């Protein structure tokens, strides 16, 4: 099949422009889900094998198998299969299902540690190479880190920085391999390389080296295809190949890299064009189409990286963030919902609920009703999907072809990347303001120039003045760390396979983040509206706070405190925006914690909102557990007041409701969830996780994990198998507000 004679032609024929292809050839679907088919016998057989393997993995302390001899790469392993004769979509990261691989370029020590936690060691050759001859990202970063950065890191002001693991978050445009074939992509990159000429500045030299790496990666990708008997050098010729080629491109990325989050992008409606064509031509049936998608998704569910236990604290439940964004509108107003959008969601029935791929619905008030209702139904029945505001993101960036990097971050496909930056602890930053710039736990001087607060009761204006100094200094140190990290990551662990599928010289944003927003907002509200007396130890460090009187709490749609939260976000973002960034990336910020809200809490002393030392923060931008006493909408409305323009990397919110609180009948529950999403996003909110669960189900799963292997729950921006969380994290999930008023 010659694609140019098969599909509507346009700019995509002349240049690498997948978006143009999609816009010209998409068939939006406005119906309901009744056309969907169940799994084929082949799919069910494969999934049974996967479930068996997953069980072994759980029983074996989260590691079914690992290769200690081979350093992972696109062509490092022989072909691997689940059960070859039943696979219509092939390809595994290694030669065996759920066998993990070493990717030591992020940090060799992490690989060693991860192996030793299972009583294993890398093969001596690998060991010698990485301890003597090969420098890693992690080594580079620590060569450059200042004492000050180390101090902020070790005391918990900056946590989870990608300085000993791969940064992830870069989304290759995996569709390119299917649409163009790799030969055409190599040609394009060669042309680009020729145009990058002198004068030879640092940036130009670096770019020439990077593009050369990309070209080599593309050749490797062809070879990787050959291992599976696939000719990726040419474009896909039919629907099955389109799915297979796209998956191969993604597989190349996850063989090369073990970034924290490695999103898939937005492939469903692209694939739909090929599927629709084959169905129209009578070559395949609906059952075939669903089989391709089921098996593709099954493969995505089996992606694994080798992680050490400590990693689990910030990213609990072994997530991979294969985030696939579905839905949204085109700029011309047409919907991007296709039958394959439904087919992706249908995998949650055909294969059962699952945290991966991280299915993200790009919500617009103008999405077709049949699709909105189906999403709500899937949410209610599986708690496996999340929502982001397409109307907000599409219009504010004038872009309709984007994916979500990791949890919440918008990224234009093939044109834009981001530098992941974990987050800073804003609650501890507030405590600096009250402790004359010293760490509340150790007394270490972190920030100079903050006067000691003598008064018995905290004065709002003084605390705010001090807090501003603290924010400015924390932003400075944070920025310095980020510049070092990304410089070194490019140098030692460059994402050549993904970058080969992205335009040369893409837009870049740097993704800073904050944790503890609700604590800060409530603390400042307490100081402003009640009387707060710090209790200090002999060194003058706060150990507790006495609050006299009541105060408005974030999460109740009360401007007196919600505007404090909004203003803090605006201010900190403004401080970050002032600072120069590596590769001239554009500064952005998120309010997102992943599951690190538990660790952050542990590292933070008592706060003026009455939170005791060590207590977990609320996740993301959520109000603090139990303080949102006016029901769901009031809680959502508080979060919606944070202005997206100040937090362009995303504002994460997680809603947990018991089924009955959504309405009396299944139909009413669907209708009310759709209205809730329309309402929340109508207030320009950005992101929402939806869990519809009974607390009792979770309690039961804690005691009888074997009965709930697929129980999925959304946490800050991703989903996890509940039974794979630690007990402590499970308990934290349970203490969250489960809205159950009827």
């Amino acid at each position, binding site marked *: 099949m010659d694609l140019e004679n098969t599909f509507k032609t346009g700019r995509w024929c002349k240049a690498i422009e997948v978006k143009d292809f999609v816009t010209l050839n998409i068939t939006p679907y406005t119906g309901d889900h009744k056309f969907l088919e169940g799994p084929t016998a082949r799919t069910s057989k494969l999934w049974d094998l996967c479930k068996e393997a997953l069980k072994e993995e759980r029983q074996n302390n989260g590691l079914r198998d690992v290769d200690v001899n081979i350093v992972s790469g696109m062509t490092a392993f022989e072909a691997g299969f689940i059960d070859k004769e039943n696979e219509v979509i092939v390809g595994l990261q290694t030669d065996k299902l759920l066998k993990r691989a070493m990717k030591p370029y992020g940090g060799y020590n992490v690989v060693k540690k991860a192996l030793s936690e299972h009583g294993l060691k890398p093969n001596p050759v690998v060991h010698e190479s990485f301890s003597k001859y090969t420098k890693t990202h992690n080594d580079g970063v620590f060569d450059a880190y200042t004492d000050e950065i180390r101090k902020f890191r070790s005391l918990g002001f900056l946590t989870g920085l990608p300085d000993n693991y791969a940064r992830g978050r870069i989304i290759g445009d995996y569709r390119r391999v299917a649409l163009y074939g790799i030969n055409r992509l190599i040609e394009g990159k060669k042309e680009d390389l020729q145009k990058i000429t002198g004068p030879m500045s640092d940036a130009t030299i670096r770019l020439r080296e990077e593009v050369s790496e990309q070209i080599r990666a593309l050749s490797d990708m062809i070879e990787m295809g050959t291992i599976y008997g696939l000719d990726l050098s040419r474009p896909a010729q039919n629907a099955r190949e389109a799915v297979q080629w796209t998956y191969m491109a993604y597989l190349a990325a996850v063989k090369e890299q073990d970034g924290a989050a490695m999103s898939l992008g937005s492939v469903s409606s692209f694939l739909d064009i090929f599927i629709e064509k084959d169905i129209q031509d009578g070559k395949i049936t609906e059952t075939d189409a669903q089989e391709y998608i089921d098996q593709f998704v099954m493969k995505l569910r089996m992606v694994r990286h080798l992680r050490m236990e400590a990693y689990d604290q910030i990213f609990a439940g072994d997530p991979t963030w294969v985030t696939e964004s579905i839905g949204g509108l085109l700029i011309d107003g047409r919907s991007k919902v296709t039958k394959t959008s439904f087919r992706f969601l249908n995998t949650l029935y055909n294969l059962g609920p699952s945290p991966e791929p991280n299915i993200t619905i790009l919500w617009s008030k103008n999405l077709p009703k049949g699709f909105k209702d189906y999403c709500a139904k899937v949410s209610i029945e599986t708690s496996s999907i999340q929502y982001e505001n397409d109307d907000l993101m599409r219009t504010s960036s004038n872009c309709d072809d984007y994916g979500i990097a990791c949890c919440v971050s918008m990224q234009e496909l093939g044109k834009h990347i981001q530098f992941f930056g974990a987050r800073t602890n804003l609650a501890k930053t507030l405590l600096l303001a009250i402790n004359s710039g010293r760490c509340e736990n150790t007394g270490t001087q972190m920030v100079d120039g903050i006067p000691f607060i003598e008064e018995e009761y905290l004065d709002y204006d003084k605390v705010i003045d001090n807090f501003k100094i603290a924010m400015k200094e924390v932003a400075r140190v944070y920025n310095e760390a980020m510049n070092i990290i990304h410089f070194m990551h490019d140098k030692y662990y460059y994402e050549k396979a993904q970058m080969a599928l992205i335009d040369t010289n893409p837009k870049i944003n740097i993704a800073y983040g904050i944790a503890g927003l609700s604590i800060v907002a409530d603390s400042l509200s307490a100081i402003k509206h009640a009387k707060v007396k710090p209790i200090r130890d002999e060194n003058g460090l706060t150990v507790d706070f006495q609050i006299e009187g009541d105060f408005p709490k974030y999460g109740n*749609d009360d401007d007196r405190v919600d505007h404090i939260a909004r203003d803090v976000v605006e201010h900190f973002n403004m401080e970050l925006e002032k600072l120069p960034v590596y590769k001239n990336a554009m500064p952005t910020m998120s309010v997102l914690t992943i599951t690190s809200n538990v660790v952050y809490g542990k590292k933070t002393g008592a706060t003026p909102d009455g939170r005791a030392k060590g207590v977990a923060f609320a996740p993301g931008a959520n109000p603090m557990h139990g303080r949102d*006493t*006016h*029901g*769901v*909408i*009031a*809680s959502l*409305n508080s979060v919606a007041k944070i202005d997206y323009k100040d937090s362009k990397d995303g504002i994460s919110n997680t809603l947990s409701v018991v089924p009955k*609180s*959504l*309405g*009396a*009948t299944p139909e*009413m529950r669907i209708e*009310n969830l759709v*209205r*809730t999403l*329309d*309402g*929340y996003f*109508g*207030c320009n909110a950005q992101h929402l996780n939806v869990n519809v669960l009974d607390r009792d189900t979770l309690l039961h799963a804690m005691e009888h994990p074997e009965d709930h292997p697929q129980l999925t729950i959304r946490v800050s921006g991703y989903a996890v198998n509940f039974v794979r969380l630690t007990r402590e994290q499970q308990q934290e999930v349970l203490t969250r507000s489960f*809205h159950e*008023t*009827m």
Partner: protein
Amino acid sequence: MSPTENKLIVHSIESFGTHDGPGIRLVVFLQGCNLQCKYCQNADTIALKGGTPTDIESLVKRAGNMKTYFGDDGGVTVSGGEPMLQSKALIPFFEALKEEGIHTNIDTNGLIRTPEAQHLISALSDLVMFDVKATTEEGFKSITGAKGLDRLLENIQLREQNQKPYWLRYVLVPGYTDSDESLTWLIETFSENSYLEKFEILPYHKLGTYKWESLGMDYQFKDVKENTPEQIDRAFEMLKPHFKDIIVK
């Protein structure tokens, strides 16, 4: 305007009301009730003391912030307690909501007949949900502690005559309100009413018992059992043919 006229005494607020009228609703639970139903699930709202005096303005703002969620049929419900005890302040509240284009609803036991309550029933409120506690005066007294069925019927009639939509809610209490005679009376009394939009059967349950205990009050319906599914089905099947929209909640 006196201070009480622009303040409501609020027990609590639920911004995600999905069980008190159509759509998603802001439910304002008002403090104080004129009855003391033996199965009251909000026993803490009965006392005439307590509650938080709340500006009408702030409640209107709260409702306004919810407009994007309301869709075509959501809005505000005042419940309680008995909201009509504060009918004076409800009038400016509902007028302001009306100005904002927000749908209004009152969840009432229907006994109060002050001029303000009558104005709300006959004209101002977009919807009224009347609780039908029992089908005879004696039954009414055995559940609520007082007679009042006649006043309820007068108020329902007032709504009907003014051609305004309303719902009826009926708690099915085994041994108290689920006899054939009771159900037949409901059919005879209401099935011909033109503005009755919806009939809700509420199974009796004991979820609110803990509130009685924590208030140090005696829960007199301790021995009354919750409905069996068969009892609910039987009542539903009997009533169903006579009401155009009837559901079990």
